[in-house]
């Protein structure tokens, strides 16, 4: 609520006196602010890349972990472990691995003869985006695996049995029995992850601080940068409020689906 009020003022942390109403100036000005306009596209790019990659990775892994084999318990623990790691730890690790002068990734690429120069991953605006995405996929995909695995475990085995008796092969059983069962969960988890990724700041802030420059300024990152570097809490709030309103649409769909799933 207070964020809403702040966003309508021209208050900064350096201002003497309280917030002053400024007739929606923040909301009007933002549409002629190129950094803001670009941040919308960057938020979409960031969110879609991550959610898609996480799902593509998590679904086969969840199916695999649902099989019966000896080391399954240990393997599950290993797979889930990245999720509990602090974002700051993830950031330190990935910065180190992708370091231009002694990172292990550059070593690896060179020993495979894919490149003969050290690539400065984090100071290139294209590369840094993909390093961020990779770090986030590594960090976040386990949650998707957990959720999908939980859904897989409730697949009715009599349905699978019936399909098998009808002569359906493994692939057909997956497409016609397992996948339809998973669809509501996939839909929910995609919505939830989309919301979380769209407002995710920590990984971006920690790895490159939105940089190089403003190359990775998604909306929450821009808002964070405004508040912590420029102390422009009013404009920062305005950006955050616009983001929230966009996410509110998704949240409404999510809650509707959740209630339908419960009923």
């Amino acid at each position, binding site marked *: 609520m207070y964020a809403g009020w702040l966003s309508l003022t021209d208050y900064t942390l350096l201002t003497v006196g309280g917030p002053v109403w400024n007739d929606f100036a923040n909301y009007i000005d933002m549409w002629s602010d190129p950094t803001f306009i670009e941040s919308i596209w960057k938020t979409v790019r960031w969110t879609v890349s991550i959610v898609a990659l996480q799902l593509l990775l998590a679904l086969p892994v969840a199916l695999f972990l649902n099989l019966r084999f000896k080391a399954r318990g240990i393997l599950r623990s290993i797979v889930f472990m990245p999720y509990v790691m602090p*974002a700051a730890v993830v950031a*330190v690790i*990935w910065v*180190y691995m992708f370091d231009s002068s002694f990172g292990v990734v550059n070593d690896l690429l060179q020993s495979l003869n894919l490149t003969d120069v050290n690539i400065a991953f984090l100071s290139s605006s294209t590369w840094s985006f993909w390093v961020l995405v990779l770090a986030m996929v590594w960090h976040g995909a386990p949650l998707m695996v957990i959720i999908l695995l939980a859904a897989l475990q409730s697949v009715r085995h009599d349905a699978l049995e019936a399909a098998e008796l009808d002569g359906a092969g493994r692939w057909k059983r997956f497409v016609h029995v397992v996948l339809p069962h998973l669809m509501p969960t996939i839909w929910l988890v995609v919505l939830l992850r989309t919301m979380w990724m769209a407002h995710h700041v*920590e990984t971006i802030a920690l790895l490159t601080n939105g940089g190089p420059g403003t190359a990775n300024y998604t909306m929450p990152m821009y808002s964070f940068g405004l508040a912590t570097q420029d102390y422009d809490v009013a404009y920062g709030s305005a950006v955050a409020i616009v983001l929230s309103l966009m996410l509110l649409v998704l949240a409404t769909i999510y809650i509707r689906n959740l209630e339908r799933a419960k009923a």
Partner: protein
Amino acid sequence: MAFKSALSFTEQRRTQRVSPLVRTGAIVAGILIVIFSLFPLYWVVRVSLTSDSSTFAESFSLSDLTLENYLTLSDKLPIWKYFGNSMIVTVCSTFLSLVAAVPAAYSFTRFAFRGRNAFSKGVLALYMLPPIVLVIPLLVVYSKVGLNDTLVGLVLANSAVGIPFATWLLMGTFAGIPTELEEAAHVDGCGYVRAMLRVALPLGLPGMVAAGCIVFIFAWNDFLFAFTLTSSDAVKTLQVAMRGFVGGEAGFFWGTIMAATAVTAIPVIALFLTFQRGLVSGLAEGGVKG
């Protein structure tokens, strides 16, 4: 478990007639998954156990391993102070979240009162609120009331996230406990409070442990609040200290940095390995179910 019986039919038969090719494929897939998940962590451990002089050595042998980085860690930076700050904030936030969430979740699932539905929806909405929307006004309010740069402020901020999450998760837990059990307790002469303490809480304990663990992990891992709401070294948490290492700006060797990284990660990893089962099901429920 239901899971085992559900699988035993199809999967057991499948394993009997599995071809060596599929078997090998599965093992390779398993190894790939392990490498993807663990390689970054392996790297932390390996570098943290290597002395600075041999970090750049071409070859790597087991005899190079040393605890030197861990032993000298506290001489180079006040890591245990940061650790203590993190621990105080985390433990207090977890405690506060549970103290608020347990009665809230219990009453949401047990008593019909006006606005109950709106309340529980509000909890869900809070849970989905972008943290950045929360953090900016907190920054302003805190600097007015003098809570900025204090551990108390961090505890309150983390609880503001922890309470809705724990409430939501525990609503699922309490909804799964049959009310008949408490009604039986009423018949035996228990009041509402005693019925809750003696019947519902012990039965809901696994859910409370899971919720507590998850809130603990979130609070421990928090960077956004700690970075925005504090600035001085006296209240610095490990996560904020970690930030100084990104890009090596603080001028430490990687061995030191990775040892500090391990210290930051160990509490949550230990917690995860101890309470895995409850934690995993809690996270799965928190993600999709109601």
